[in-house]
């Protein structure tokens, strides 16, 4: 059971990261922003969506990696952030079948299913 006491180990860490060329990262981010902007004028839906959301994910990853130094941080930190994201995904998966959809097993949303003619259901009254 016994063990040697650890020496008072913990100094506040000094400069724990190597600083990359931030201007270069910034330039890439701005270029990606241009891609999103230009992509949004496309009429091909997949192109718009990728330019919008695919690029957003890339941008977020770049900021997280280069500005926030997530990858240099202790291993559990990125996992913590990922687990939090995972919980949001679980929430989405559990809620979407009810909220996103307008009908399911033995239920429907009369109003949402007749958006153009909400009054059509008025015959029930």
């Amino acid at each position, binding site marked *: *059971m016994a*063990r040697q*006491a*650890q020496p008072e*180990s*913990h100094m506040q860490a000094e400069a724990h990261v190597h600083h990359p060329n931030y201007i270069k990262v910034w330039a890439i981010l701005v270029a990606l922003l241009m891609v999103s902007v230009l992509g949004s004028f496309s009429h091909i839906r997949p192109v718009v969506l990728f330019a919008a959301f695919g690029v957003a994910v890339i941008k977020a990853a770049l900021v997280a990696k280069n500005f926030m130094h997530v990858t240099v941080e202790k291993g559990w930190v990125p996992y913590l952030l990922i687990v939090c994201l995972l919980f949001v995904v679980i929430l989405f998966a559990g*809620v979407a079948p*009810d909220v996103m959809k307008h009908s399911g097993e*033995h239920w429907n949303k009369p109003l949402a299913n007749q958006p153009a003619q909400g009054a059509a259901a008025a015959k029930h009254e």
Partner: protein
Amino acid sequence: MSEHAAPGIFERYFFSTDHKIIAMQYLFTGMGMAMIGGFFAYVFRMQLGFPNQNVPGYGIVTAGKYNALVTMHGSIMIFWVAMPVLIAAFGNFLIPLMVGCDDMAFPRINRLSYQIFLLSALVLLSSFLVKGGPFGGAWTAYPPLSASGAYNLTPVGATLWLVAVALEFVAFLLGGINFIVTTMNSRAPGMKMYDIPLVVWMIVLASVIFMASVGPLIAGAIMLLFDQTMSTGFYDPTRGGDPLLWQHLFWFFGHPEVYVVLLPAMGIVAEVIAVFARKKVFGYKTVLYTTWAVGFLSFVVWAHHQFVAGIDPRMANIFSVTTLLISVPITEMVFLYIATLYGGSIRLDTPMLWALAFIGEFMIGGVTGIFLGSSGTDIYLHDTYFVIAHFHYTFVPIAIIATFAGLTFWYPKMFGHMLNETLGKIHFWGTIVTFNVIFIPLFITGTAGDQRRVYSYAQFAEQARPALQHLRTTSTIALLFMLAFQFIFLFNFIWSFRHGKTAGANPWRSATLEWTVPSPPPHGNFAQLPTVYRGPYEYGLPGYADDFVPQNVPDLAISIAGETD
């Protein structure tokens, strides 16, 4: 630690950053709120036991007042009693002492946390003074009832309730993150991950669960606030919203919340049982693994509160399975606690009585949950008194029984005096017996179809039967006795401040670090900050004269052997 002159009374007790003072602030605020919540229980149980009679100290309970009372009872007991006492008070008091440091890592954030909490309590109580009175739409606050004053008739009260709850969340986010950081970073040298006492582990894990689950509800609360005050339509189906969204966001937090308050209670009980059985906790690591499993699973069971709420029936099957799954680690945890008793030398002092009662009663709460978690039977039992009895068999052990276990156990450390044992035992037996007499009849009325949140059963022929009314009256009378017994505790608590036997540093002969400092601990806690050499539960370690070895005592024999190697 401070070299400054002693601060004035006001600064010392109201604006202190000392974790022990903040713990006391949380404790006393929580106890005050418990009295308010208990008074509400008295009023509405009187109405149920003796319908439409004048309730002494309150008056006639009308339908609207009844709704407000049950809503406030639920909200207060969970958010303003269980949370502040179990997590904040014990967390604040114990974490720095048990991990061997002088204060929280961020004392001023800690103070801010309490101040926001106090504000939230005041906002909640202020709703009693506004037009329309306090919110009466149940603590779950389902919209559209909660979203529109035209429906709930308490437009101001509903908003105040929501603001109070949101503030309370912010307070516990700040406090909880502080607990996490302090435990992760500020432990005494030598205290490894598996040397941390279980109660600290559990409070920290509870804070993590809280932190990860409350976010969507904070978002949901903002949406509900806008629905109330800015006529948005987030939960209004006629305008593209969906009332089920709130229910999901609420229970996505609401179910983990059960474990948020359960885990600290489990931790307290672990400490008490280990000390009074003079035993190492059976399978310390297994306890932790089951806790992690419970923590994770608690995020995937929430919709079992909504089986019949209009969710897609296919989803109910998934949530039913996960719900029964979560019973596995919880059962295992309880088994481990019982196994800890094996081979011990059990002394039945008051804290131990409470701790054992926690296990005994919580098991009843646990097994009755199976009836509700299995979707088929929940169709019938949902929103009946069976549910009420079930969750009071979990929440009373958590928020009352475990709290008393903790309070009676750490009272000598907090105030330097022992509580009176005789009064303590009278209080214990009085509370436990009456507690069961309150809620066992409610299992029966629930099984007979009594629905919740109804101030009078006069309209319901099946429920208005005299046999059921007798059960309700029995429950109410038992509650009166239970409340009366609490005054014994209150007397004991206040009287022992001055007149209790002087405690000394370690009256229970316990091995964790908080017992190595004087009672009550001075500002800064440790005259010399400790170094940790062993786990927290070294009782009956062979080769020692004493039957316990404190964490900060070096193991001379073996370390000498190590040097000669």
